[in-house]
């Protein structure tokens, strides 16, 4: 029903395993197909080429995994939200799993505007055969955090630009130094801002190497986005709790 009733819903989902190699756009298409497979009552944009009203949150780089992604979708009638996660999981490819849903307020601000902090778990190693030690990595992190500004060259929308990355790094803590699967390596928890300009773990490692070249050629072995937060009145709120009413959260596997 174009222009008719609209029931916005916020979905929380995970993207883990092999599926991490599909892009943000591919993920969006997988959801749109899942909505159609389940014959959900979508609402559509007006115009020559109507599109379903689905709005995705922050993009996740191809190759990264996530425990917590979000999207907002608008339905033309009310749905049984308790059943929605299981229905969508069945229609989505393996590795994409809906973990929570909530009814969203009619005029809730867009995810991309209000999510301001994200946390990551990053397994880091060296590209060459040399083992990365925790001490070397910690020294590199300390040197990076001491700076007020670290400008790196990165590609944005197909163009190379100079950006300060330091401003987006809130915290970087080494949580594990026994990466037994690989020969040496470090796991850290990283917290980054998304505004005014965010930084991906890849950018943070680039900045770290620029400040401390001796740390060696670093590479991400595994990157998982673990949380996304909305900051309101000095507190952190999950996007499932902000501007929402009834929420259904699935028990997380493991």
């Amino acid at each position: 029903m174009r222009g008719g009733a609209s029931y916005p819903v916020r979905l929380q989902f995970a993207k883990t395993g092999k599926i991490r190699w599909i892009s943000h756009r591919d993920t969006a298409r997988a959801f749109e197909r899942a909505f159609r497979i389940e014959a959900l009552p979508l609402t559509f944009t007006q115009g020559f080429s109507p599109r379903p009203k689905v709005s995705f949150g922050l993009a996740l780089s191809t190759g990264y995994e996530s425990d917590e992604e979000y999207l907002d979708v608008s339905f033309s009638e009310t749905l049984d939200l308790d059943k929605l996660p299981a229905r969508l999981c069945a229609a989505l490819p393996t590795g994409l799993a809906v973990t929570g849903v909530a009814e969203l307020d009619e005029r809730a601000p867009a995810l991309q505007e209000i999510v301001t902090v994200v946390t990551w778990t990053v397994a880091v190693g060296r590209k060459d055969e040399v083992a990365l030690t925790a001490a070397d990595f910690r020294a590199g992190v300390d040197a990076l955090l001491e700076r007020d500004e670290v400008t790196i060259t990165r590609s944005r929308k197909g163009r190379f630009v100079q950006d300060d990355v330091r401003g987006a790094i809130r915290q970087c803590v080494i949580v594990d130094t026994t990466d037994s699967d690989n020969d040496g390596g470090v796991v850290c928890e990283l917290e980054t801002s998304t505004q005014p300009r965010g930084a991906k773990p890849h950018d943070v490692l680039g900045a770290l190497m620029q400040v401390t070249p001796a740390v060696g050629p670093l590479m991400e072995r595994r990157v998982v986005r673990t949380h996304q937060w909305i900051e309101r009145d000095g507190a952190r709120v999950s996007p499932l709790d902000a501007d929402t009413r009834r929420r259904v959260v699935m028990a997380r596997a493991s």
Partner: protein
Amino acid sequence: MSDLWPRIEPLLAEVEKPARYIGMERGSRQPAWAPHKVAWLLIYPDTYEIGLPNQGLQILYEILNERGDAVAERAYAPWVDLATSLRARGIPLFSVDTHRSAAYFDILAFNLSAELVFTNVLDLVDLAGVPVRSEDRTFEHPIVLAGGHCAFNPEPLAEYIDAFVIGEGEEVVSEITEVVAAHKRAATLPGARRGREAREQMLRELASITGVYVPSMYEVSYDGPHIAAVTPRYPEVPAKVAKRTVADLDDWPYPKQQLVPLIEVVHDRLNVEVFRGCTRGCRFCQAGMITRPVRERSAESVRTMVREGIARSGYDSVALTSLSSADFSGIGDVVGDLVTDQVGTGQVSVSLPSLRVDAFTVGIATEIQKVRRTGLTFAPEAGSWRLRQVINKLILEEDLYAAVDSAYANGWRRVKLYFLTGLPTEMDVDTLGIAELARNVVEVGRKHTKQASVTVSVGGFVPKPHTPFQWFGQNGVDEMQRKISLLRDDVRPRRGGTGPIQLKWHDAEASFAEGLCSRGDRRVGRVIERVWRAGGTFQEWSERFALDRWMEACAAEGIDADWYVTRHRSRDEILPWDHIEAGLHKDFLWDDWQEALAEHGLPDCRWTPCYDCGVCTDLALEHVVASPIPPAGGSQGTGQQLVDVDAGATAVRFLGRKPAGVQ
């Protein structure tokens, strides 16, 4: 144990489009392996985006996995970046379904849909860890099979492929499975022979299956450059190999679970085949000749496949595919039903990739493209009425203009026209006729909008085996380039800038290499091998193609490329594919070739008396057509008018060359 994924995954961060290699599509299988089962690896020797939608491969994937004695998985050619890193680390070609090494499979089955993928076939056999030449393989190696349209001239790959399937694969894959399964069982018995002899025995048995051609079972002798004879080496091996054809498409409602890719691919929509075969008789068209007779799916079966396919896949568009979909007897009803019966959550669009050029067709196109009405493509193929009679594509200029007028009147904004150049008897006046038609089409459009424009795509004609043009000497590179220049100069706006006609053309050098493979014999195989060894993979991709590599390979092998490509053949010459039977009698093809030179068209036999091409009588089949009368609007009698409703559906021959929609 056999899962290569942990070794492949670390390489993916460095390659283009890593999702090409992960599998996991809706509809994909993780088949349960067992020692007694025959394991097929179905390989499309081009990129994932080109290969995934291939319906033939998907049909066999399902049929084999439904059998209790077989498993089937898929592989696509890894792009150069990944292929290089796999080789550097000694990782073999793998299936995308379970990431098993290709070497674990009993059969490597290649789909040959274009000649320029031949070098990729050798590359993938090598990447699988299997010797590239058949003679170097033993019982321990997989059987290397190939099928698809290019198998109708198997000779250029005769030294590299153990067995070819000629024609449709639905039934024959089961017969092949049974032979291979019996040999697998026998090999486990005490004292079983497992060497070269055992392989030879298995190949002999495969050669006895109708539709299976085992090149090593045939001796080819030469008389100077010409073939003197092709002789079977054993009494039970047939002198001629007849193609396989399924009688009733309703018995084969496949694919039932079309694969839904996670990344964008060509033809990214639900595809439902409405009929197979075509009797319009376009003389340049190999597909139309080798897939006869016409077999329609019932309208009810089409409806069911569309309804279930949309519900299961989540696609929002469906294409009704065939070589000329407006000729489908039930087209009006089926389209009407699809449009009114909005399946699933609605917003499903329907496209008809191959239609005729007439107002009736534009009417259908208008009905189905209620939204997203962007471009319509028509394929007159030649620039003059005379030449269209030669090629038997009998579109009158008036039909084209009426169709274009109707398209603009119905809100289409862009018209594309497809042509061939280098056709038999083509003169400069015919080539320039292309520009003339394009200008007139723009004029027709201008009555509706000032912005009317037309895109003209010109392909270089490559003569194909089993067509009336198989005797024709292809235009050389210089001649084809001259014709394209002629056309470019003619459409270039007098006052500079970009005019209303955009001209696109196919690389004449690639057409030359295609011509060498298309009508080559066994001796051309060594040229292909040299091109591959020199790094010439992905020859369908313009950035990877270089004719120099082909010419150097010809020189090294003492092959005169012009003898194969530009030479006219005579009636009494033994053609390299004469022992492969597509059903059409050679006399019929020769007569049709003479009719072409006399500029005579030939009616479509679905609605006119039989002129005995040989297919129906030899196969003991009949055209399966629901309606005894030609479809409405078929004003042109024999007209082969093709129109393409532009929903990303471009003519197949342009896909490899212009991967624009893919990149």
